[in-house]
Each structure stands twice: as C-alpha cells, then as structure tokens.
C-alpha cells in the first residue's frame, strides 16, 4: 500500500473519534437528539481529507502516520473544547482551516528544497527573538497572569512564542549543522574535557544568556525551559556529547535560580508548585493549580465522561485542558493522549534518523524535541511535576497561534520526511 493510502486509512479512527465524541456530548447533555454531531464529524473529516489531498499531491512519499496522529489530537482537542464552549469550538475549527492554508502554503513554498531555510538562519533567529520580546513592547504587549506571552495589534492577537519556537529550532539546526564538526573535534582536543572549544563557546554561551534573558524578560519558566531544552536536544543529537547536556542543564538551573530570586512572579509559581493548598493562597494564586488537581482527583481511572464534570478551573480550554481531560476521560484517557504524543514524537524522530543530511536530521529532531518538551512543560505543570506555566497543549488546546504554529511544525516535519524517504527509496 502506498504511504498516502495508508495515511487515508489511518484517518478513519480520528473521524470516528470526533463523531463519537460529539455524539457523547450531545447525548450527555440530554438535549434533543441531534444530527449536528455527525455534521461536525463530516466537516472535520472534510478538513482532514483536504489536508490529505494536499499532502498526496505535494509530498507523496512523506511519513503516512504523522498527519493522522495530529488529526487524532486535533479532533480530540476539538471535542473537549466543544464540550467546554460551543462557540470556541467553532472558532477552533476555523483555525484548523486557517492552519491548513498555512500548512499548504509552507509546503508549496518550501517544496523544492526546504534547506533554503539554512541560508536565512540569522534572519530567522533575529525574527524569532523579536517575536519573543514583542509581548514586552509598549502598546502591543499583553500581560497574562504576570507573564508576558501575548501580543495584540489592533484586533489581531497572538502568542508570538508559538511561532518563535519554530524559528529557534530552524536556527539551531542550521547553526549546529554548521558547527557540529568543530564542536566535536575541537572539544576532544581540549584536554579531553567535554567542554566546547573556546572559539565556539561564545555562541553557546549566548544561547544560554538568551534563555535566561527570556526567563527574566517574559517571566515564563515554561517557554524558557522549552527553548533551552530544544537547544540541548539538538546540541546532543549534533554532537553525541552527554557532557554538553549535563553542563548545559546545570548552567541553566544555576542561572534560572539566580534569575528567579529577582522575579517575584516566578517565586510565586514555585511557591504554588511546592504547596498549592496553602491556605494563604489556595483561593488566590494557588487557585488554578489546586482546582486543576481537584479536577484530576475526580477523574479516577475512567473519568466522569464527556460533559460530565463541573468546570471550576480557570483557563479550562488552554493551559488546564489536561486537567479537564483527566477529569472527564480519567487516567486511561489521559494516558491514551500521552501515548498519541509519544507516537507522534516517535515518527518525528524516525524522520530525523532516516534523513540523509545533517540539517534535515537536526531540524526533524529539534521539531520533535520542542513538541515533546511543550507537552512535558504543560502536562508537567498541571500534574505538578514542575511549576505550572502558560504554554498550550499542542493541537489540543484552544488558540489560533498554537494551531497555526503547530501546523507549520507538521508541514516542516512532512517536508523533511518526504525528502528523506524518497532518497532512501531511490538509493536502495
């Protein structure tokens, strides 16, 4: 079977899930029996088939499972959002259409050879940093929960960090593709210690400083952790030096500790993380985390069922959507969701492994890593593995920026995959 036919077949579970999900909510609300759920299912299926056709014509050899897995996540998110707020679900569906357009545009623009991105690496890096600091700019910056993550230019509001993460991964892949040999070879000569050579120490230090600067500037541990983690992942894949990762993590932890002392907001997040039920703040700054935990506690093994729970948590459709999922689908549903992410990351890393050139490998590995880290940061925040910070659950949370950026991420992965698999076939 051709990869594309396999992809089409793999979309069946997603479309079934979305129909079943909508049906469950309709029935659960005891409304009049409505065929609207099937309409929703059909619309979603239409979007999926359209995307599939775009891939079939532009990237015939790309990995057949990446898109169905994303579709599964997307429809899962859509059902949960629908259950929370009907209007938002409709607007989220609109974002999926817009995401599909951007997805197609990305593929068409980079179809010939996505490696042109390498040439623009510094421009991309600069653009990404600009995006990241935009929320702190006067007039357009938006503060949410004392962190600076949003931008509003007139009616257009978006979360620049979602797009910046792509640019940073592209830049890091390009930069490390260029310097990996020197990093490996020179460092070996440096008295056998796994420190990078001095000459290249500067740029790496610069990335470290940038991450800490972000932590200080946009006051968000999550984004900062995500970017620096992606950097370490790409650095590790590029050099195969665990020492770099260890030193990097230690440096980040030390820096973060120092920065956190000076930013009360981060200190608050840590306080809440360590003790969310402290009577001093359980109704205040700890409310979100505490209610998220209570929602999870009510979920149990199998959950309360779609539409079955009461929503007390703030931001149930974005930051805390995972708490709602645990509540309504239980531990089983939540583990299923994490497994889908794990499969998606596996396909992404598989793409990285079969890619023929270093840039492709590093790009695919970086994109997969940043996706995995984002999932870890937000779910880890909700489950109190780490302090809670405001990032979205990719493809599931409500939000235009998140949907658009993640569709571009998918497009990039498919571009790498298509090329890698074609080359693998032709050289066989």
């Amino acid at each position, binding site marked *: 079977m051709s990869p594309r036919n396999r992809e089409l077949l793999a979309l069946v579970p997603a479309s079934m899930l979305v129909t079943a999900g909508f049906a469950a909510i309709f029935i659960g609300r005891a409304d009049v029996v409505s065929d609207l759920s099937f309409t929703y299912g059909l619309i979603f299926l239409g979007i999926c088939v359209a995307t599939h056709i775009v891939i079939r014509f532009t990237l015939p050899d790309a990995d057949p499972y990446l898109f169905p897995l994303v579709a599964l996540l997307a429809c899962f998110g859509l059902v949960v959002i629908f259950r929370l707020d009907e209007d938002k679900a409709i607007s989220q569906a609109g974002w999926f259409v817009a995401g599909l357009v951007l997805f197609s545009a990305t593929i068409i623009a980079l179809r010939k050879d996505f490696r042109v991105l390498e040439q623009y690496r510094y421009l991309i890096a600069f653009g990404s940093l600009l995006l990241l600091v935009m929320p702190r700019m006067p007039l357009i910056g938006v503060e949410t929960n004392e962190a600076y993550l949003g931008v509003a230019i007139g009616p257009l509001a978006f979360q620049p960090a979602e797009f910046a993460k792509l640019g940073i991964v592209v830049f890091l892949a390009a930069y490390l593709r260029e310097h990996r040999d020197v990093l490996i070879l020179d460092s070996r000569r440096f008295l056998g210690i796994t420190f990078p050579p001095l000459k290249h120490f500067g740029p790496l230090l610069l990335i470290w400083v940038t991450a800490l600067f972000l932590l200080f500037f946009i006051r968000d541990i999550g984004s900062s952790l995500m970017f620096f983690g992606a950097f370490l*992942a790409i650095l590790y894949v590029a050099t195969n030096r665990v020492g770099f990762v260890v030193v990097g993590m230690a440096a980040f932890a030390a820096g973060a500790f120092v920065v956190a002392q000076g930013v009360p907001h981060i200190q608050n997040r840590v306080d809440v993380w360590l003790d969310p039920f402290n009577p001093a703040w359980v109704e205040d700054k700890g409310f979100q985390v*505490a209610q998220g935990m*209570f929602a999870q*506690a009510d979920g149990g093994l199998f959950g309360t069922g779609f539409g079955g729970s*009461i929503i007390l948590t703030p931001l149930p459709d974005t930051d805390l959507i995972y708490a709602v999922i645990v509540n309504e689908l239980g531990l089983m549903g939540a583990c299923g969701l994490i497994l889908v992410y794990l499969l998606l990351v596996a396909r992404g890393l598989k793409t990285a492994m079969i890619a023929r050139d270093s840039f492709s490998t590093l790009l695919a590995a970086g994109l997969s890593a940043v996706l*995995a880290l984002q999932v870890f940061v937000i779910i880890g925040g909700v489950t109190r593995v780490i302090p809670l910070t405001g990032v979205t659950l990719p493809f599931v949370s409500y939000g235009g920026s998140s949907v658009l950026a993640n569709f571009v991420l998918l497009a990039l992965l498919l571009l790498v995959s298509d090329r890698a698999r074609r080359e693998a076939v032709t050289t066989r």
Partner: protein
Amino acid sequence: MKTPILKLYGTVVLLFGVLMGFTSYWSVFAADGLRDQTANRRDELQEQRIKRGTIKTADGTVIARSRKRDDETYRRQYPQGELFGHPIGYAFASIGSSGLEAFYDDRLVGRRTELVTTFESLIGREQEGQDLEITLDGEAQQIATDALKATESAKGAAVAMDLETGAVRVMASVPGFDPNDLDKPGVFGKLSSDDDDTPIFNRAAQGLFPPGSTFKTVTATAALDTGEYTPDTTVSGANGKPISGVPLQNAGGADFGPITLTEALTGSVNTVWAEVGEDLGGETMNEYMERFGFNAAPPIDLPASQLPRSGIRDGKGKLIEASAASVDVGRTAIGQAALLVSPLQMATVAQTIGNGGVRMEPYLLEAAVDTDGRTAFKAEPERAERVMSEETAAALGEMMRNVVREGTGTAAALEGVEVAGKTGTAEVDVAGGINDAWFIGFTDRTAVAVMVERVASQGGIAAAPIAKSILERLDG
C-alpha cells in the same frame, strides 16, 4: 547521529512516563486526599447539579422539590414551609442536610454504583433521584402543629403512628423553622440558638424530657407481664410512703386507701406505682424498658445523629441501667428521678400496648419511585419485638381506657372511638409550678404521644386535648 536520537527518544519516553506516573498519582492514588481538601468544593457543586427527588405525602402534597436555576444548578424548595421542617429536614450544599433528606440522600440523588454510573453515562442518562412518598398525614400534622403553637409556652412535640405498622402519621415539633430560608446568612445560627428555643431542634425525636406519669404504663407492663400483679391487685395508696428512704407525695398530697392497680392508674397514684416499681426491682424494670426500646436509638429512618437514646441519665448525662445502684427505682417507675425520654419513644410505648404487645419499628418512608416510574422501595412493617403477652396488653389497654373514661385523661375522649391513654405531668420547675405536660394513648388504629413543654398546667389539661384532635383527624 542515530544513537543520540534513540537516546533522545528514550529520554522523551522517560519524561512522558513521569507524566503518566504523576497523573495516576493524582487521579487515583492521592485522589481521596485531594477530595478531602477544604478548598475542594467540587462535591458541593456536583450535588447542586443533581435533581433531587421530590418528597410528597400520600395525598400528593409536595413537601420538597428541586428547581433548576439559571446557572444549571438545582435548589431545594419546601412549598409547605415549616410544617414538615423537622421530620423532612433540609438539603443545601452550603449547610448540609438533616432529617429524611439526609437519611435518604442516596435515594434522593439516585446514587448508584460506579459501574452503573459509567453505563448510564454512556447511554447518556442524567443522574436523577427517586421520588419519595412519606407516611405523614399533612392534615394531622397541621392540626398538631397548630395546637402546639396555641399552647401557653408554644413549645412541644407530638408523634402519632399507625398501631399495627409503626408508620408515622404525625411528627410535629414547635417552634418550627422554614427550611426555605436556612442557607441564608445567619439564619441557621439563629435557629440553633438557645435564646430562641432552638427551633432547628426536632423535639419529637431529638428532644429528651422527663416523662412523668406516662411512664407508669411501662411500670404497669412489667407488673402485669411478670405475673406479680393483676389489674385488681390491691396496693396501699397512702400519701408520704417512703421510696428509697424518702417520703413520696401524691399529686396534691391526696391520700388513698387500699386501691386496685386499675384505680391507681386511673387516678395516677404515685405512691402505688413507685412501690410497685421498687417491688419489681431495677433488673425487671430495666428488662421491660429495653423491650420497649429504651437505652437504644429508636429504629426509625432518621439520621442516627438526630436520635438520642431514651433512658436514665447519670449526673454526667451518661445512660445507665435501672438496675444500677445509684438509681432511685421507685421514682423512676413513676417517670421522675433521672429518667429522660423522647416523645417518639413514648409514642412507641403506646403503640406497643395498643398493638397487643408487639413493638413495631416506626418509619417515615412509605415508598420510593424511580425516574421511570418503577417502585424502587415499598415499606414493609418491621416487627421490633414482642414486649409483653397479648393478655397483658389487653389488660393494660383496658386500664388505660379507664384513664380516659373516668380518670386524668378524660379530655382525650372521642365520640364513637374508644381512646386508651395516660397523662403525665413532669415537674421541671417546682417553685414556678412549671411542668412538661404529657399524654400518650391509642385507639384501635393509632398511637399518639403529645408533650407540651414548660407550661403551668397538667398533662390531662394541656396535652390530652391535642392528642384528641390528632386522633380525631386520623381515626374520625
């Protein structure tokens, strides 16, 4: 670069494993602890989203129902106001529940096993409670409440139950409270305050009072059933006989000669019954008290926390048996000394005697109907135990009929229906002449107990007429 990618994947697997581990911890292993957190108000809100069943009387009068509010939550309404406040109780998310609402909470919210819940939510059925039909008679309840309110102290309680089944027809307690206002700020605290005679308190089941001479029926049961006495046994009714070494006075200092037990009950002669009690002894008295249900929580369908045990209380309020050395058995036998009882317990005494000696478990729930109209529960009268022989019951019944015919209880007499009864006047403030006035009795269908709290009156005057009007409604 394959090796680092594989290791990277291993790291991701590890991290996601941590996420699953934490999720299982919070959602399953630590879930109970999280539910107990004071900041967790999910249960309370969840409860408000369930439509509790409706509570009705047999004639269809709605006592409690749930109404949906704009925010999709339900609120309990009590259309009859305070009339059924005590037995039915209340159910509000903010202050909890009491009475029948608390006892039948599972039925009223339709609580089911987790498996059934999962199935029902799959087929999309909303959790809904069963409707309850109760045994109370609205009109008799109203009559009792009005009569108690009209008394001098406007405080008291009345209980009436079906003689053969134990189905409770009246459970009235005055002062009452309107459950509709209970969750408003400050209301609950005020209703619980002693300064306002604690209207929240269900005097009929929760209250403990000295029974006075109504307790002589228990002593008489022991006297006749042991075979030590017959209704015609002659005992001296002299005034000032020493009981536990201290002279005991008859009401009004009246001195009787040798009289029969029947006459002694009709005239409620203290010295006779105290002597009988002393003669029978603490062991026997305790035996019969326990057969009647004293020293144990009444087996009625109300929350155990609202059902104190009737019996003899020591100085610290602890329950002691009649055989204990510190007990004045003679005075206990005439309902004085340290004896404290609930009107519900005394109604059971009357019910037992009237029912040929068989004590029935009192109950308030007649039937429960689920949302599909199926009967989920139908009351089946439960026999608690045989307290005395049928002969004893018949003989005592005749003695008690004499009380109403020509004794202290004539005010309870009904036309066309023969009433058996016993009055009681428990002195709670001797100097002020304040008594708890009692009447217990039965017809061939209904048993009743009425207690008027703290009045300058007597059982035959203050309580007997109320019993009469209740019996008139139920048996007329």
